């Protein structure tokens, strides 16, 4: 009985790939409830979980969850500059981002380094290097934003002199509407190349902000906006 029924469904859904069946591309807003597919409002963020001091032998460490996106950050240092690296009168920062079963775009590392150089007081450790290690345990959308928050918290936990703590957030634009803190499904549903062909516009904005100083330490766009 079971084998026949499974054959029946397979024949019904002929023409669809396995990935399409597992993750069907739903509209971003549920037409019945007027809310997003996971029951949130447009301007509502996912539940956030934050913990510091998770790795005792390191200088500073933190763990951040944005919904199902999980990031660990560990800060080590300051270490002596090796002779291979050029001399620098101020401190240096090295960032390394790892993820489970995949590769992180090199853009992420560069952006994180720029953001960290904006908030750490580099004059306090001349000729030394501060190592920031980030691990994305699960990427369910807006991983870069979670990385920013985790790094800011790990620096504060380690007692490293910073101008301010930093908070990251992501915004998704589908051509008509803005969505706060998008999930992986929502990001996949928005095909940027398709949007560009249809000349609708749409994209992702990631912002790193310094709340007490009212300043920005990172701003990055992906996609386009037509008006």
């Amino acid at each position, binding site marked *: 009985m079971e084998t026949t029924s499974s054959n029946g469904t397979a024949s019904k859904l002929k023409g669809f790939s396995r990935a399409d069946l597992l993750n069907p591309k739903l509209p971003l807003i549920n037409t019945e409830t007027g809310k997003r597919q996971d029951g949130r409002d447009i301007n509502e963020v996912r539940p956030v979980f934050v913990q510091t001091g998770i790795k005792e032998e390191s200088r500073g460490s933190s763990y951040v969850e944005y919904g199902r996106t999980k990031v660990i950050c560990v800060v080590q240092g300051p270490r002596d500059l090796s002779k291979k690296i050029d001399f620098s009168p101020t401190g240096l920062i090295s960032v390394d981002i790892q993820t489970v079963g995949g590769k992180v775009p090199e853009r992420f590392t560069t952006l994180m380094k720029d953001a960290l150089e904006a908030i750490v007081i580099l004059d306090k450790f001349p000729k030394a290097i501060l190592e920031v290690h980030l691990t994305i345990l699960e990427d369910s959308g807006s991983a870069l934003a979670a990385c920013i928050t985790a790094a800011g918290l790990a620096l504060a936990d*380690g*007692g490293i*002199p910073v101008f301010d703590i930093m908070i990251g957030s992501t915004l998704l634009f589908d051509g008509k509407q803005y969505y706060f803190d998008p999930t992986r499904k929502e990001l996949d549903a928005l095909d940027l190349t398709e949007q560009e062909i249809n000349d609708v516009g749409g994209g992702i904005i990631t912002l790193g902000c310094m*709340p007490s100083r009212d300043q920005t330490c990172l701003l990055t766009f992906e996609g386009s906006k037509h008006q």
Partner: protein
Amino acid sequence: MNSSISTENKSVAGEGIKEDEGYEWVIDEEEGVPKRKKIEDRTKVRVLNVQANDGTFVMPGQKLAVANEYFEAGEGAYEFANVIYAAIVGKVCIEKFPEQELTVVSVKRKGKAPFISPTIGSIVTCTVVNRTYGLARCLITHVEDVELDDTMRGIIRREYITDKNRDAAEIQSSFGVGDIILARVVGIGEGDFIMSTSEDALGVASATSPAGYQMIPIDWTTMECPVSKARVSRKVAKIVQPQILKSEPS
């Protein structure tokens, strides 16, 4: 409080606001509308305008006090645009120095070792690893009383050994390999920190004799092994040696 507003200078937003010196537009907290207010000259404030009292728990980026020549940011705080901000998570510590008319606002944290790295002017403890005719190479292990996570490289040049009779000073007769020395960082070189021992309290703090015993200073240029009685010349730091404390006459 808002009595300085005059009706003549009050401009509408559409006409374009002229920036006049000495005044700024501040959103009034009670009414919620922007009002023209005279900018206070923060460099002349003599009363400690503390926004966070002694012992308050603060986060990085939090405003602590006004900064000018009478108020300075200490450890764990920084100054920006005549305001002292907190740089680390911790508790506010206000120290007053009435003789110099100075108040230092710093943030301190219990439990964890403070973040410290050698900078110009800091006293460091280091171990001599190599010596040549011109310089002694050292590894910095401590800055003041805090142990570093990683050792850093430093050098002491022949000219920086002593300030008295400095041409006669030699590396070979001042430091030995393996000696623990106290030094002050005087410069950030290209590869290594440049250090100096040209103060009375700086120099060799602890040395081991070839026989393997800790040597005792007998004057400020000589040290002696307590067992083999062999004498070597060193630039000895004028600090209280632990042997003297033990052999104090009762």
